[in-house]
Protein backbone atom coordinates (compact mmCIF):
# COMPACT_ATOMS: atom_id res chain seq x y z
CA UNK A 1 0.00 0.00 0.00
CA UNK A 2 1.32 3.44 -0.90
CA UNK A 3 1.15 6.33 1.50
CA UNK A 4 1.83 9.50 -0.52
CA UNK A 5 1.66 11.75 2.53
CA UNK A 6 4.57 9.93 4.16
CA UNK A 7 6.59 10.06 0.95
CA UNK A 8 6.05 13.81 0.67
CA UNK A 9 7.05 14.18 4.30
CA UNK A 10 10.22 12.17 3.71
CA UNK A 11 11.09 14.29 0.68
CA UNK A 12 10.56 17.62 2.47
CA UNK A 13 12.53 16.29 5.41
CA UNK A 14 15.53 15.43 3.22
CA UNK A 15 15.41 18.80 1.43
CA UNK A 16 15.30 20.55 4.80
CA UNK A 17 18.31 18.57 6.00
CA UNK A 18 20.53 18.76 2.95
CA UNK A 19 19.62 21.86 0.97
CA UNK A 20 21.91 24.10 3.03
CA UNK A 21 24.80 21.71 2.52
CA UNK A 22 24.12 21.58 -1.22
CA UNK A 23 24.65 25.34 -1.35
CA UNK A 24 28.30 24.85 -0.38
CA UNK A 25 29.53 23.14 -3.55
CA UNK A 26 27.22 25.26 -5.73
CA UNK A 27 28.84 28.52 -4.65
CA UNK A 28 32.29 27.01 -4.19
CA UNK A 29 32.40 26.26 -7.91
CA UNK A 30 30.71 29.57 -8.86
CA UNK A 31 32.76 32.12 -10.76
CA UNK A 32 31.35 35.24 -9.03
CA UNK A 33 32.59 36.72 -5.77
CA UNK A 34 29.07 37.51 -4.59
CA UNK A 35 27.02 34.74 -3.02
CA UNK A 36 23.74 35.12 -4.92
CA UNK A 37 21.73 33.61 -7.72
CA UNK A 38 21.90 33.62 -10.69
CA UNK A 39 25.21 31.74 -10.88
CA UNK A 40 27.87 33.29 -13.04
CA UNK A 41 29.74 30.31 -14.44
CA UNK A 42 31.90 27.35 -13.33
CA UNK A 43 35.30 27.96 -11.77
CA UNK A 44 37.81 26.28 -9.48
CA UNK A 45 39.48 29.60 -8.59
CA UNK A 46 38.30 29.54 -4.96
CA UNK A 47 39.89 26.15 -4.41
CA UNK A 48 43.08 27.47 -5.97
CA UNK A 49 42.91 30.48 -3.67
CA UNK A 50 43.03 28.09 -0.69
CA UNK A 51 46.57 27.10 -1.58
CA UNK A 52 47.82 30.65 -1.32
CA UNK A 53 47.06 31.17 2.35
CA UNK A 54 49.80 30.18 4.81
CA UNK A 55 47.57 31.08 7.77
CA UNK A 56 45.02 28.56 6.52
CA UNK A 57 47.71 25.91 6.21
CA UNK A 58 48.82 26.34 9.79
CA UNK A 59 45.17 26.15 10.91
CA UNK A 60 44.73 22.90 8.96
CA UNK A 61 47.91 21.55 10.48
CA UNK A 62 46.79 22.39 14.04
CA UNK A 63 43.38 20.88 13.43
CA UNK A 64 44.87 17.66 12.05
CA UNK A 65 47.28 17.27 14.96
CA UNK A 66 44.47 17.90 17.45
CA UNK A 67 42.09 15.52 15.65
CA UNK A 68 44.63 12.70 15.41
CA UNK A 69 45.69 12.94 19.07
CA UNK A 70 42.06 13.29 20.18
CA UNK A 71 40.92 10.27 18.22
CA UNK A 72 43.70 8.12 19.72
CA UNK A 73 43.09 9.25 23.31
CA UNK A 74 39.29 9.14 23.14
CA UNK A 75 39.40 5.65 21.61
CA UNK A 76 41.79 4.32 24.27
CA UNK A 77 39.52 5.64 27.03
CA UNK A 78 36.53 4.28 25.13
CA UNK A 79 38.09 0.81 25.01
CA UNK A 80 38.60 0.81 28.78
CA UNK A 81 35.06 2.03 29.43
CA UNK A 82 33.40 -0.33 26.97
CA UNK A 83 35.33 -3.40 28.11
CA UNK A 84 34.55 -2.60 31.71
CA UNK A 85 30.90 -2.05 30.87
CA UNK A 86 30.56 -5.25 28.87
CA UNK A 87 32.82 -7.76 30.63
CA UNK A 88 33.46 -6.63 34.20
CA UNK A 89 31.31 -6.23 37.29
CA UNK A 90 32.06 -3.58 39.89
CA UNK A 91 30.11 -1.44 42.37
CA UNK A 92 28.15 1.55 41.00
CA UNK A 93 28.79 0.33 37.45
CA UNK A 94 25.63 1.92 36.03
CA UNK A 95 26.39 5.30 37.57
CA UNK A 96 30.00 5.32 36.43
CA UNK A 97 29.10 4.38 32.85
CA UNK A 98 26.44 7.11 32.96
CA UNK A 99 29.03 9.71 34.01
CA UNK A 100 31.22 8.79 31.04
CA UNK A 101 28.31 9.54 28.70
CA UNK A 102 27.43 12.83 30.42
CA UNK A 103 29.51 15.15 28.15
CA UNK A 104 27.14 14.15 25.32
CA UNK A 105 24.36 16.24 26.84
CA UNK A 106 26.38 19.05 28.45
CA UNK A 107 25.97 22.34 26.54
CA UNK A 108 29.26 22.89 24.75
CA UNK A 109 29.41 26.56 25.67
CA UNK A 110 29.21 25.64 29.38
CA UNK A 111 31.89 23.03 28.90
CA UNK A 112 34.04 25.56 27.06
CA UNK A 113 33.76 28.19 29.80
CA UNK A 114 34.42 25.61 32.51
CA UNK A 115 37.49 24.30 30.70
CA UNK A 116 38.80 27.81 30.11
CA UNK A 117 38.49 28.58 33.82
CA UNK A 118 40.14 25.27 34.68
CA UNK A 119 43.06 25.75 32.33
CA UNK A 120 43.79 29.46 32.88
CA UNK A 121 42.65 30.13 36.46
CA UNK A 122 42.99 26.80 38.29
CA UNK A 123 45.94 25.24 36.51
CA UNK A 124 47.45 28.59 35.50
CA UNK A 125 48.34 27.39 32.00
CA UNK A 126 48.19 29.28 28.77
CA UNK A 127 45.64 27.70 26.42
CA UNK A 128 47.48 25.82 23.71
CA UNK A 129 47.14 22.97 21.27
CA UNK A 130 47.25 20.32 23.97
CA UNK A 131 44.55 21.88 26.11
CA UNK A 132 42.30 21.66 23.05
CA UNK A 133 43.31 18.00 22.64
CA UNK A 134 42.31 17.29 26.24
CA UNK A 135 39.02 19.15 25.86
CA UNK A 136 38.20 17.35 22.61
CA UNK A 137 39.10 14.03 24.21
CA UNK A 138 36.57 14.78 26.93
CA UNK A 139 33.95 15.46 24.28
CA UNK A 140 34.78 12.54 21.99
CA UNK A 141 35.16 9.83 24.63
CA UNK A 142 31.38 9.30 25.02
CA UNK A 143 31.01 8.86 21.25
CA UNK A 144 33.93 6.46 21.11
CA UNK A 145 32.57 4.60 24.13
CA UNK A 146 29.12 4.19 22.63
CA UNK A 147 30.52 2.85 19.34
CA UNK A 148 32.82 0.47 21.23
CA UNK A 149 29.97 -0.58 23.55
CA UNK A 150 28.33 -2.05 20.46
CA UNK A 151 31.52 -3.88 19.52
CA UNK A 152 32.06 -5.25 23.05
CA UNK A 153 28.40 -6.11 23.63
CA UNK A 154 28.60 -8.63 20.78
CA UNK A 155 31.42 -10.46 22.55
CA UNK A 156 30.75 -13.67 24.41
CA UNK A 157 31.93 -13.23 28.01
CA UNK A 158 33.45 -16.69 27.74
CA UNK A 159 35.96 -15.73 25.00
CA UNK A 160 38.56 -14.26 27.35
CA UNK A 161 37.93 -16.99 29.92
CA UNK A 162 38.39 -19.64 27.22
CA UNK A 163 41.69 -18.05 26.18
CA UNK A 164 42.85 -17.99 29.81
CA UNK A 165 41.71 -21.59 30.23
CA UNK A 166 43.92 -22.46 27.24
CA UNK A 167 46.96 -21.01 28.97
CA UNK A 168 46.98 -17.28 28.21
CA UNK A 169 47.36 -14.56 30.83
CA UNK A 170 44.61 -11.99 31.31
CA UNK A 171 46.41 -9.46 29.13
CA UNK A 172 47.32 -11.85 26.31
CA UNK A 173 43.75 -13.20 26.33
CA UNK A 174 42.58 -9.63 25.72
CA UNK A 175 45.22 -9.05 23.06
CA UNK A 176 44.69 -12.32 21.17
CA UNK A 177 40.92 -12.61 21.30
CA UNK A 178 39.09 -9.45 22.35
CA UNK A 179 41.24 -6.93 20.53
CA UNK A 180 41.00 -8.50 17.05
CA UNK A 181 37.26 -8.92 17.47
CA UNK A 182 36.67 -5.28 18.41
CA UNK A 183 39.30 -3.85 16.02
CA UNK A 184 36.77 -2.64 13.44
CA UNK A 185 34.92 -0.87 16.26
CA UNK A 186 38.20 0.73 17.36
CA UNK A 187 38.91 2.06 13.86
CA UNK A 188 35.33 3.24 13.57
CA UNK A 189 35.55 5.03 16.94
CA UNK A 190 38.80 6.72 15.89
CA UNK A 191 37.30 7.97 12.63
CA UNK A 192 34.19 9.37 14.34
CA UNK A 193 36.31 11.07 17.04
CA UNK A 194 38.55 12.48 14.31
CA UNK A 195 35.59 14.07 12.50
CA UNK A 196 34.05 15.47 15.67
CA UNK A 197 37.35 17.02 16.73
CA UNK A 198 38.04 18.41 13.26
CA UNK A 199 34.64 20.10 13.08
CA UNK A 200 34.43 21.32 16.67
CA UNK A 201 34.30 25.09 17.07
CA UNK A 202 33.07 26.38 20.43
CA UNK A 203 35.55 24.72 22.77
CA UNK A 204 38.41 25.22 20.31
CA UNK A 205 37.49 28.91 20.08
CA UNK A 206 37.57 29.39 23.87
CA UNK A 207 40.75 27.41 24.38
CA UNK A 208 42.61 28.30 21.23
CA UNK A 209 44.95 30.94 22.67
CA UNK A 210 47.54 31.54 20.00
CA UNK A 211 46.57 28.37 18.12
CA UNK A 212 43.97 28.65 15.39
CA UNK A 213 42.03 25.55 14.36
CA UNK A 214 40.27 25.26 11.04
CA UNK A 215 36.74 26.09 12.30
CA UNK A 216 38.13 29.04 14.27
CA UNK A 217 39.94 30.22 11.16
CA UNK A 218 36.72 30.03 9.13
CA UNK A 219 34.92 31.98 11.81
CA UNK A 220 37.54 34.69 11.52
CA UNK A 221 36.78 35.10 7.83
CA UNK A 222 33.04 35.62 8.29
CA UNK A 223 33.00 39.42 8.32
CA UNK A 224 34.84 39.77 5.02
CA UNK A 225 32.08 39.12 2.49
CA UNK A 226 34.62 38.83 -0.32
CA UNK A 227 36.07 35.80 1.49
CA UNK A 228 32.78 33.90 1.50
CA UNK A 229 33.41 31.86 -1.69
CA UNK A 230 36.69 30.66 -0.16
CA UNK A 231 34.82 29.52 2.93
CA UNK A 232 32.39 27.72 0.63
CA UNK A 233 35.27 25.91 -1.06
CA UNK A 234 36.79 24.96 2.28
CA UNK A 235 33.41 23.83 3.55
CA UNK A 236 32.93 21.66 0.48
CA UNK A 237 36.21 19.88 1.17
CA UNK A 238 35.28 19.36 4.82
CA UNK A 239 31.84 17.96 3.99
CA UNK A 240 33.29 15.53 1.44
CA UNK A 241 36.00 14.48 3.91
CA UNK A 242 33.46 13.96 6.69
CA UNK A 243 31.21 11.84 4.47
CA UNK A 244 34.14 9.74 3.27
CA UNK A 245 35.34 9.11 6.84
CA UNK A 246 31.84 8.33 8.10
CA UNK A 247 31.22 5.84 5.30
CA UNK A 248 34.62 4.26 5.93
CA UNK A 249 33.83 3.97 9.63
CA UNK A 250 30.51 2.28 8.89
CA UNK A 251 31.98 -0.13 6.33
CA UNK A 252 34.61 -1.18 8.86
CA UNK A 253 32.03 -1.62 11.59
CA UNK A 254 29.88 -3.87 9.40
CA UNK A 255 32.85 -5.86 8.19
CA UNK A 256 33.78 -6.46 11.82
CA UNK A 257 30.31 -7.76 12.60
CA UNK A 258 30.40 -10.10 9.63
CA UNK A 259 33.79 -11.41 10.62
CA UNK A 260 32.55 -12.16 14.10
CA UNK A 261 29.43 -13.72 12.59
CA UNK A 262 27.00 -11.71 14.71
CA UNK A 263 23.76 -9.83 14.04
CA UNK A 264 23.93 -6.13 13.26
CA UNK A 265 22.71 -4.12 16.22
CA UNK A 266 22.58 -0.62 14.77
CA UNK A 267 25.20 1.93 13.82
CA UNK A 268 25.59 5.38 12.37
CA UNK A 269 24.55 4.68 8.78
Amino acid at each position, binding site marked *: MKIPALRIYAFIYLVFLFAPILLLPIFAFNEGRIIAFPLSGFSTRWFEALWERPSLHSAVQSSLIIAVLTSILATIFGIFAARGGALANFPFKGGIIGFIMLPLVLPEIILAVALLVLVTKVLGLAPNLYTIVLAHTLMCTPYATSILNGAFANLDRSFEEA*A*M*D*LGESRWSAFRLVTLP*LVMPGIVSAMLISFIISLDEFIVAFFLSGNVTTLPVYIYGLRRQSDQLPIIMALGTILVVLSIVLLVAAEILRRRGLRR*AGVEDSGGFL
Partner: protein
Amino acid sequence: MSGSPLISLRGVNKHFGDYHALRDINLDIRAGEFFSLLGPSGCGKTTLLRTIAGFEDLSSGTLMIDGRDMANVPANERPTNMVFQSYAIFPHLTVAQNVAFGLRRDPRSKAEKARAVAEALEMVGLAGYGARAAHALSGGQRQRVALARALILQPKVLLLDEPLSALDKKMREQMQVELIRLQRNVGITFILVTHDQEEALVMSDRIAVMFEGSIGQMDDPETLYRRPNSRRVANFIGKMNFLPAEVLTEAGGRVTVEVTGLGKGEITREQAPTGAPSGPAVVGIRPETLTILFEGETTERRWVDGVVDEVVYYGDMTYYDVRIPGVAEPLNLSMRNVIGRPVLEVGTPTRITWDERSLVLLDA
Protein backbone atom coordinates in the same frame (compact mmCIF):
# COMPACT_ATOMS: atom_id res chain seq x y z
CA MET B 1 40.64 -47.41 43.08
CA SER B 2 44.19 -46.90 44.20
CA GLY B 3 45.97 -43.84 45.49
CA SER B 4 44.63 -40.45 46.45
CA PRO B 5 41.82 -38.73 44.53
CA LEU B 6 42.73 -36.54 41.54
CA ILE B 7 40.47 -33.74 42.71
CA SER B 8 39.65 -33.12 46.32
CA LEU B 9 37.46 -30.40 47.79
CA ARG B 10 37.27 -29.88 51.56
CA GLY B 11 34.83 -27.52 53.25
CA VAL B 12 34.47 -25.37 50.15
CA ASN B 13 32.24 -22.32 50.46
CA LYS B 14 31.57 -19.58 47.96
CA HIS B 15 29.77 -16.31 48.64
CA PHE B 16 28.71 -13.74 46.06
CA GLY B 17 27.94 -10.82 48.34
CA ASP B 18 25.04 -12.05 50.49
CA TYR B 19 24.41 -15.03 48.25
CA HIS B 20 25.79 -18.32 49.56
CA ALA B 21 26.46 -20.15 46.28
CA LEU B 22 28.40 -23.15 47.61
CA ARG B 23 27.82 -24.55 51.11
CA ASP B 24 30.49 -26.71 52.69
CA ILE B 25 31.25 -28.89 49.67
CA ASN B 26 33.31 -32.03 50.33
CA LEU B 27 34.09 -34.00 47.22
CA ASP B 28 36.65 -36.47 45.91
CA ILE B 29 36.92 -37.26 42.23
CA ARG B 30 39.09 -40.15 41.10
CA ALA B 31 41.40 -40.14 38.10
CA GLY B 32 39.69 -41.41 34.96
CA GLU B 33 36.21 -40.95 36.38
CA PHE B 34 33.25 -39.54 34.44
CA PHE B 35 31.73 -37.41 37.17
CA SER B 36 28.56 -35.33 36.86
CA LEU B 37 27.27 -32.37 38.82
CA LEU B 38 23.50 -32.52 38.48
CA GLY B 39 20.92 -30.11 39.78
CA PRO B 40 18.31 -27.50 38.95
CA SER B 41 19.44 -24.07 37.73
CA GLY B 42 20.89 -21.97 40.52
CA CYS B 43 21.99 -24.98 42.59
CA GLY B 44 25.67 -23.99 42.34
CA LYS B 45 26.84 -26.71 39.95
CA THR B 46 28.31 -24.27 37.42
CA THR B 47 29.90 -22.22 40.21
CA LEU B 48 31.52 -25.40 41.50
CA LEU B 49 32.87 -26.20 38.04
CA ARG B 50 34.19 -22.64 37.58
CA THR B 51 35.83 -22.92 40.98
CA ILE B 52 37.70 -26.02 39.83
CA ALA B 53 38.63 -24.28 36.55
CA GLY B 54 40.00 -21.29 38.45
CA PHE B 55 37.50 -18.66 37.31
CA GLU B 56 36.09 -18.20 40.83
CA ASP B 57 38.01 -17.92 44.10
CA LEU B 58 37.00 -19.97 47.10
CA SER B 59 35.50 -18.02 49.99
CA SER B 60 36.77 -20.77 52.29
CA GLY B 61 37.97 -24.35 52.11
CA THR B 62 40.63 -26.06 50.01
CA LEU B 63 40.77 -27.38 46.48
CA MET B 64 43.48 -29.87 45.57
CA ILE B 65 44.12 -31.08 42.03
CA ASP B 66 46.65 -33.86 41.54
CA GLY B 67 47.99 -33.36 45.03
CA ARG B 68 48.56 -29.63 44.61
CA ASP B 69 46.72 -26.89 46.47
CA MET B 70 45.04 -24.67 43.87
CA ALA B 71 44.83 -21.56 46.05
CA ASN B 72 46.56 -18.74 44.12
CA VAL B 73 46.95 -20.89 41.01
CA PRO B 74 45.30 -18.98 38.15
CA ALA B 75 43.14 -20.68 35.52
CA ASN B 76 45.90 -20.63 32.90
CA GLU B 77 48.22 -22.66 35.12
CA ARG B 78 45.77 -25.37 36.20
CA PRO B 79 45.84 -28.85 34.68
CA THR B 80 42.20 -28.41 33.67
CA ASN B 81 40.53 -27.40 30.43
CA MET B 82 36.96 -26.41 29.90
CA VAL B 83 34.26 -26.77 27.27
CA PHE B 84 32.04 -23.74 27.75
CA GLN B 85 28.28 -23.79 27.50
CA SER B 86 28.46 -21.33 24.60
CA TYR B 87 31.56 -23.24 23.33
CA ALA B 88 33.38 -19.86 23.09
CA ILE B 89 34.82 -20.72 19.70
CA PHE B 90 36.89 -17.69 18.64
CA PRO B 91 34.96 -16.36 15.63
CA HIS B 92 37.89 -14.55 14.01
CA LEU B 93 39.97 -17.72 13.70
CA THR B 94 39.68 -20.84 11.58
CA VAL B 95 38.85 -24.22 13.05
CA ALA B 96 42.53 -25.23 13.01
CA GLN B 97 43.61 -21.93 14.60
CA ASN B 98 41.02 -22.43 17.32
CA VAL B 99 42.25 -25.93 18.07
CA ALA B 100 45.89 -24.80 18.02
CA PHE B 101 45.18 -21.82 20.31
CA GLY B 102 46.47 -23.50 23.47
CA LEU B 103 49.68 -24.66 21.73
CA ARG B 104 51.10 -21.15 21.43
CA ARG B 105 53.71 -21.77 24.11
CA ASP B 106 54.27 -25.36 23.05
CA PRO B 107 57.94 -25.78 22.02
CA ARG B 108 57.13 -28.30 19.28
CA SER B 109 57.75 -27.44 15.65
CA LYS B 110 55.07 -26.01 13.41
CA ALA B 111 54.69 -29.28 11.52
CA GLU B 112 54.32 -31.29 14.72
CA LYS B 113 51.70 -28.89 16.01
CA ALA B 114 49.81 -29.10 12.72
CA ARG B 115 49.84 -32.88 13.03
CA ALA B 116 48.54 -32.65 16.61
CA VAL B 117 45.73 -30.37 15.42
CA ALA B 118 44.82 -32.78 12.63
CA GLU B 119 44.78 -35.68 15.09
CA ALA B 120 42.59 -33.76 17.55
CA LEU B 121 40.14 -32.88 14.78
CA GLU B 122 40.04 -36.47 13.64
CA MET B 123 39.39 -37.63 17.21
CA VAL B 124 36.22 -35.51 17.37
CA GLY B 125 35.11 -36.47 13.86
CA LEU B 126 36.05 -33.20 12.13
CA ALA B 127 38.95 -34.40 9.98
CA GLY B 128 39.46 -31.99 7.07
CA TYR B 129 37.55 -29.11 8.68
CA GLY B 130 40.70 -27.22 9.72
CA ALA B 131 40.50 -24.46 7.12
CA ARG B 132 36.84 -23.61 7.76
CA ALA B 133 35.83 -20.31 9.34
CA ALA B 134 34.71 -20.93 12.91
CA HIS B 135 31.56 -18.84 12.72
CA ALA B 136 30.26 -20.89 9.79
CA LEU B 137 29.97 -24.09 11.88
CA SER B 138 26.79 -25.72 13.18
CA GLY B 139 26.15 -26.12 16.91
CA GLY B 140 27.30 -29.73 16.97
CA GLN B 141 30.46 -28.90 15.02
CA ARG B 142 31.28 -26.00 17.35
CA GLN B 143 31.05 -28.36 20.25
CA ARG B 144 33.44 -30.79 18.62
CA VAL B 145 35.90 -27.95 17.96
CA ALA B 146 35.63 -26.92 21.62
CA LEU B 147 36.37 -30.51 22.65
CA ALA B 148 39.35 -30.80 20.31
CA ARG B 149 40.68 -27.43 21.50
CA ALA B 150 40.57 -28.57 25.12
CA LEU B 151 41.75 -32.16 24.63
CA ILE B 152 44.76 -31.25 22.47
CA LEU B 153 46.38 -29.92 25.66
CA GLN B 154 45.98 -33.34 27.31
CA PRO B 155 44.59 -31.92 30.56
CA LYS B 156 44.27 -34.04 33.68
CA VAL B 157 40.67 -32.94 33.94
CA LEU B 158 38.18 -31.89 31.28
CA LEU B 159 35.40 -29.65 32.57
CA LEU B 160 32.17 -29.58 30.58
CA ASP B 161 29.61 -26.87 31.35
CA GLU B 162 26.22 -28.05 30.01
CA PRO B 163 27.89 -28.95 26.72
CA LEU B 164 24.82 -30.55 25.16
CA SER B 165 22.11 -28.11 26.20
CA ALA B 166 22.30 -26.09 22.97
CA LEU B 167 21.84 -29.12 20.73
CA ASP B 168 18.59 -30.66 19.51
CA LYS B 169 17.42 -33.98 20.98
CA LYS B 170 18.81 -36.29 18.28
CA MET B 171 22.18 -34.54 18.22
CA ARG B 172 22.29 -34.56 22.01
CA GLU B 173 21.78 -38.31 22.24
CA GLN B 174 24.41 -38.92 19.59
CA MET B 175 26.92 -36.65 21.36
CA GLN B 176 26.24 -38.40 24.70
CA VAL B 177 27.40 -41.68 23.23
CA GLU B 178 30.38 -40.02 21.52
CA LEU B 179 31.45 -38.29 24.72
CA ILE B 180 31.37 -41.56 26.66
CA ARG B 181 33.46 -43.26 23.98
CA LEU B 182 35.87 -40.32 23.83
CA GLN B 183 36.32 -40.35 27.59
CA ARG B 184 37.09 -44.06 27.58
CA ASN B 185 39.61 -43.60 24.76
CA VAL B 186 41.53 -40.67 26.21
CA GLY B 187 41.22 -41.77 29.83
CA ILE B 188 40.95 -38.18 31.03
CA THR B 189 38.78 -37.35 34.04
CA PHE B 190 35.58 -35.66 32.84
CA ILE B 191 33.48 -33.44 35.07
CA LEU B 192 30.13 -32.67 33.49
CA VAL B 193 27.65 -30.06 34.65
CA THR B 194 24.08 -30.75 33.60
CA HIS B 195 20.49 -30.12 34.65
CA ASP B 196 19.35 -33.12 32.57
CA GLN B 197 18.99 -36.14 34.87
CA GLU B 198 18.77 -38.54 31.94
CA GLU B 199 22.04 -37.21 30.52
CA ALA B 200 23.73 -37.64 33.90
CA LEU B 201 22.40 -41.19 34.33
CA VAL B 202 23.47 -42.23 30.83
CA MET B 203 26.99 -40.82 30.93
CA SER B 204 28.35 -40.81 34.46
CA ASP B 205 30.31 -43.16 36.66
CA ARG B 206 29.17 -41.10 39.62
CA ILE B 207 26.77 -38.20 40.09
CA ALA B 208 26.59 -35.49 42.73
CA VAL B 209 23.05 -34.12 42.97
CA MET B 210 23.13 -30.52 44.14
CA PHE B 211 20.45 -28.33 45.69
CA GLU B 212 20.89 -24.74 46.90
CA GLY B 213 24.66 -24.90 47.02
CA SER B 214 25.04 -28.26 48.77
CA ILE B 215 25.43 -31.82 47.60
CA GLY B 216 22.23 -33.73 48.36
CA GLN B 217 23.50 -37.16 47.34
CA MET B 218 26.60 -38.53 45.63
CA ASP B 219 26.42 -42.03 44.19
CA ASP B 220 26.62 -44.12 41.06
CA PRO B 221 23.60 -43.75 38.71
CA GLU B 222 21.89 -46.99 39.74
CA THR B 223 22.09 -46.33 43.48
CA LEU B 224 20.93 -42.78 42.89
CA TYR B 225 17.91 -44.01 40.97
CA ARG B 226 17.02 -47.02 43.09
CA ARG B 227 17.92 -45.67 46.52
CA PRO B 228 17.57 -41.91 46.60
CA ASN B 229 18.23 -40.61 50.08
CA SER B 230 15.58 -37.89 50.05
CA ARG B 231 12.32 -36.94 48.38
CA ARG B 232 14.12 -34.05 46.69
CA VAL B 233 16.65 -36.33 45.02
CA ALA B 234 13.95 -38.88 44.16
CA ASN B 235 11.86 -36.16 42.54
CA PHE B 236 14.74 -34.70 40.58
CA ILE B 237 15.86 -38.05 39.17
CA GLY B 238 12.96 -39.67 37.36
CA LYS B 239 9.45 -39.87 38.78
CA MET B 240 8.45 -41.36 42.09
CA ASN B 241 5.19 -41.92 43.97
CA PHE B 242 5.28 -41.03 47.66
CA LEU B 243 2.94 -42.65 50.18
CA PRO B 244 2.70 -41.79 53.86
CA ALA B 245 3.89 -44.73 55.95
CA GLU B 246 4.72 -45.80 59.48
CA VAL B 247 7.68 -47.89 60.57
CA LEU B 248 6.40 -50.55 62.97
CA THR B 249 9.41 -52.70 63.82
CA GLU B 250 12.98 -53.19 62.76
CA ALA B 251 14.73 -56.46 63.53
CA GLY B 252 17.55 -58.47 61.92
CA GLY B 253 17.82 -56.22 58.89
CA ARG B 254 14.09 -56.47 58.19
CA VAL B 255 11.81 -53.46 58.53
CA THR B 256 8.04 -53.76 58.84
CA VAL B 257 6.12 -50.76 57.50
CA GLU B 258 2.46 -49.89 57.27
CA VAL B 259 2.04 -48.05 53.93
CA THR B 260 -1.11 -46.01 53.35
CA GLY B 261 -3.10 -47.60 50.54
CA LEU B 262 -0.74 -50.54 50.09
CA GLY B 263 -1.05 -52.04 53.56
CA LYS B 264 1.54 -53.69 55.77
CA GLY B 265 4.77 -54.88 54.16
CA GLU B 266 8.35 -55.91 54.87
CA ILE B 267 11.49 -54.37 53.38
CA THR B 268 15.21 -54.75 53.96
CA ARG B 269 17.39 -52.32 55.86
CA GLU B 270 19.14 -51.39 52.56
CA GLN B 271 15.85 -49.97 51.29
CA ALA B 272 16.03 -47.29 53.99
CA PRO B 273 19.10 -45.17 53.01
CA THR B 274 18.64 -42.75 55.90
CA GLY B 275 17.65 -45.31 58.53
CA ALA B 276 14.34 -46.68 59.75
CA PRO B 277 13.44 -45.22 63.14
CA SER B 278 10.01 -46.21 64.40
CA GLY B 279 7.28 -43.73 63.59
CA PRO B 280 6.03 -41.75 60.60
CA ALA B 281 7.96 -42.00 57.33
CA VAL B 282 7.40 -41.89 53.57
CA VAL B 283 7.61 -44.77 51.15
CA GLY B 284 8.63 -44.09 47.56
CA ILE B 285 7.88 -46.31 44.61
CA ARG B 286 8.88 -45.76 40.97
CA PRO B 287 6.10 -45.80 38.32
CA GLU B 288 7.67 -48.67 36.34
CA THR B 289 7.75 -50.95 39.40
CA LEU B 290 3.97 -50.79 39.74
CA THR B 291 2.19 -53.24 37.43
CA ILE B 292 -1.40 -53.43 36.22
CA LEU B 293 -2.93 -56.90 36.20
CA PHE B 294 -4.77 -57.20 32.90
CA GLU B 295 -7.65 -59.61 32.35
CA GLY B 296 -6.71 -63.20 33.08
CA GLU B 297 -3.40 -62.28 34.74
CA THR B 298 -2.80 -63.33 38.33
CA THR B 299 -0.01 -62.72 40.84
CA GLU B 300 1.35 -64.18 44.02
CA ARG B 301 2.51 -60.74 45.08
CA ARG B 302 0.40 -58.28 47.03
CA TRP B 303 -2.12 -56.21 45.12
CA VAL B 304 -4.64 -53.40 45.52
CA ASP B 305 -7.73 -52.43 43.50
CA GLY B 306 -8.11 -48.96 42.00
CA VAL B 307 -9.66 -46.98 39.15
CA VAL B 308 -7.88 -45.49 36.14
CA ASP B 309 -7.91 -41.69 36.51
CA GLU B 310 -5.78 -40.58 33.56
CA VAL B 311 -4.19 -42.23 30.52
CA VAL B 312 -1.27 -40.87 28.48
CA TYR B 313 -0.31 -42.97 25.47
CA TYR B 314 3.36 -42.63 24.51
CA GLY B 315 3.83 -45.19 21.75
CA ASP B 316 6.18 -47.63 23.43
CA MET B 317 4.73 -46.91 26.87
CA THR B 318 1.41 -45.93 28.40
CA TYR B 319 1.37 -43.79 31.53
CA TYR B 320 -1.56 -44.25 33.91
CA ASP B 321 -2.78 -42.42 36.97
CA VAL B 322 -4.63 -44.89 39.17
CA ARG B 323 -6.68 -43.92 42.21
CA ILE B 324 -6.54 -46.33 45.12
CA PRO B 325 -8.67 -46.15 48.27
CA GLY B 326 -7.24 -44.19 51.19
CA VAL B 327 -4.66 -42.23 49.15
CA ALA B 328 -5.29 -38.62 48.12
CA GLU B 329 -2.96 -38.51 45.10
CA PRO B 330 -3.41 -41.05 42.31
CA LEU B 331 -0.42 -43.38 41.74
CA ASN B 332 1.68 -42.83 38.61
CA LEU B 333 2.54 -46.00 36.82
CA SER B 334 3.91 -46.90 33.40
CA MET B 335 3.26 -50.03 31.37
CA ARG B 336 5.18 -51.19 28.33
CA ASN B 337 2.81 -51.59 25.35
CA VAL B 338 3.23 -55.21 24.29
CA ILE B 339 1.10 -57.04 21.72
CA GLY B 340 -2.22 -58.19 23.16
CA ARG B 341 -2.17 -55.73 26.01
CA PRO B 342 -4.98 -53.15 25.77
CA VAL B 343 -4.67 -49.44 26.58
CA LEU B 344 -7.16 -48.96 29.41
CA GLU B 345 -9.71 -46.16 29.38
CA VAL B 346 -10.33 -43.62 32.11
CA GLY B 347 -12.70 -45.04 34.70
CA THR B 348 -11.70 -48.69 34.20
CA PRO B 349 -11.52 -50.61 37.50
CA THR B 350 -8.06 -52.08 37.70
CA ARG B 351 -5.85 -54.16 39.97
CA ILE B 352 -2.25 -53.13 40.55
CA THR B 353 0.60 -55.09 42.06
CA TRP B 354 4.17 -54.32 43.11
CA ASP B 355 7.36 -55.87 44.30
CA GLU B 356 8.30 -54.95 47.87
CA ARG B 357 11.97 -54.88 46.89
CA SER B 358 11.29 -51.76 44.79
CA LEU B 359 10.10 -49.69 47.76
CA VAL B 360 12.38 -47.09 49.32
CA LEU B 361 11.83 -45.75 52.82
CA LEU B 362 12.51 -42.03 53.32
CA ASP B 363 12.19 -39.47 56.09
CA ALA B 364 8.69 -38.03 56.33
